[in-house]
């Protein structure tokens, strides 16, 4: 049950995008079309899941035993960057269609703060290995949910007479604000 709560909390209650403001750049940048949003979301879920596992291992098996917590940020970001690189190479090798749908989004993910944020929150909340993994999956699912909903809305708004100065990024922020208001309805789901 606890794992379930971690998942729900990361996915909807404390949605990474809408209440932690993590991964806003891709949220704004890759939400123009539903199809790319779905691919990006899948890529993020995948990277989040494996990077939460690896950063957990690095932190608890190397940094803590050797008292090198000061290297937390340097090592996390290196691990994430190289993981993304490896995954990209791997996908390119095994499946061309998969690469075309997911691969092109992978480089974008390296500099996505949601991935690093995930690792940092895991450490901060003292999650164990399994909890970290579930947290990663939940956060990825939440990111995807927000991204795909946003893309659906933006495809619609592309055809709406949005006032001139609000077209583009501004209305995207307003929609995100409205979504964040709506997601506040889930507040407190985890407290009981």
């Amino acid at each position, binding site marked *: 049950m606890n794992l379930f709560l971690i998942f729900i909390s990361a996915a909807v209650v404390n949605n990474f995008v809408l209440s932690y403001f993590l991964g806003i750049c891709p949220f704004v940048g890759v939400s123009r079309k539903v199809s790319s949003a779905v691919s990006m979301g899948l890529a993020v879920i995948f990277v989040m899941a494996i990077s939460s596992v690896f950063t957990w291992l690095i932190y608890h098996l190397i940094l803590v035993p050797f008292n090198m917590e000061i290297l937390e940020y340097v090592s996390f970001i290196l691990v994430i960057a190289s993981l993304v690189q490896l995954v990209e190479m791997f996908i390119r090798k095994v499946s061309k269609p998969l690469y075309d749908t997911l691969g092109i989004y992978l480089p974008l993910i390296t500099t996505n703060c949601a991935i690093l944020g995930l690792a940092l929150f895991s450490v901060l909340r003292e999650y164990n290995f399994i909890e970290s993994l579930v947290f990663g999956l939940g956060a990825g699912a939440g990111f995807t949910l927000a991204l795909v909903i946003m893309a*659906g*809305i933006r495809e*619609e708004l592309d055809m709406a007479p949005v*006032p001139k100065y*609000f077209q583009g990024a501004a209305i995207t922020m307003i929609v995100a604000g*409205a979504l964040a208001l709506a997601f506040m*309805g889930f507040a*407190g789901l985890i407290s009981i």
Partner: protein
Amino acid sequence: MSIPSPASSKGKSKLKEPENLLILASSPHLHTTTSTQSIMWQVVLALSPAATMAIYYFRWPAVVIILTSVIAAVLTEAVINRLKGETLTITDGSAVITGLLLALTLPPTFSIGGTILGAVVAIGIGKQLFGGLGYNIFNPALLGRAFLQASFPIGMTTWSTPATLAGSAVDGVSTATPLGLYKFEHALTGYADLFVGNVGGSLGETSALAILIGGLYLLIRRFADWRIPVSYLGGVVIIGGIFWAFAPNQFPDPVFHLLSGGLILGAFFMATDMVTSPITHLATWIYGIGMALILVIIRLFGGLPEGVMYSILLMNAVTPLLNRYTRPKIFGEVQS
């Protein structure tokens, strides 16, 4: 100009003929007599029983809130029309509905300043920033209310006891809503009181009877899609009923779910807002059941006693996706 606009070509094509001026328009040349404007004003009419009950139960404060909200909504619309340099759209009645519905979702003791803010947000951000009538993604009245709920969490959850025929005006004695009582004190309220509305709550939500009168009018005139109240309320009965069947001591029964809070008002007047609800029939069913699921989860497990507003806003958000992925099978199309 790559696309000729029908409106402009219509204007231009009034050719002068020796014997007469004949209007050239594209077929069909017959139209239904129901106009968007008349629909909107009839929705206002349909809301009048609920508004009347609000005034009966909560007296002057209700009058003040309703008037403030409607006037603020209409003025905001007018000002934005001006800023955008368009013709005034306030006579189409949609801003009046938004203002009226916002008012009906506010607590009787809510401040005038807060009411104005809510109406400005509803029309300004909720409707006009998205492109005006027909283009908004979220229900404007509910977006305004959600803004107020997040801004003034205490003011938005302070309720007063309704007045009755016997009782005098509202005396500011604060009370709790049936859902609040249930959630925080695990106390149930009688069905009769719930049905006629003799309970604490937002202005227009307390009397199921008054709302049903207007709501049925909307359904009969086909201004609201019957699938929405049927799927939403039906979903709540079924989903809420499942929880109740498993743990009747822990969870309230479906009738209580139906009659308490803003469910009936939301199901008949807000979820049915055509602009923000889906257009395909399959999507409409999913929309209704989705709202029901979110509502029951929030009511039973969330931090808030009530979830109607959030359930509708959240399903508004996925409506573009629903519409997109439920394209009906075209006549004669084979399932692939």
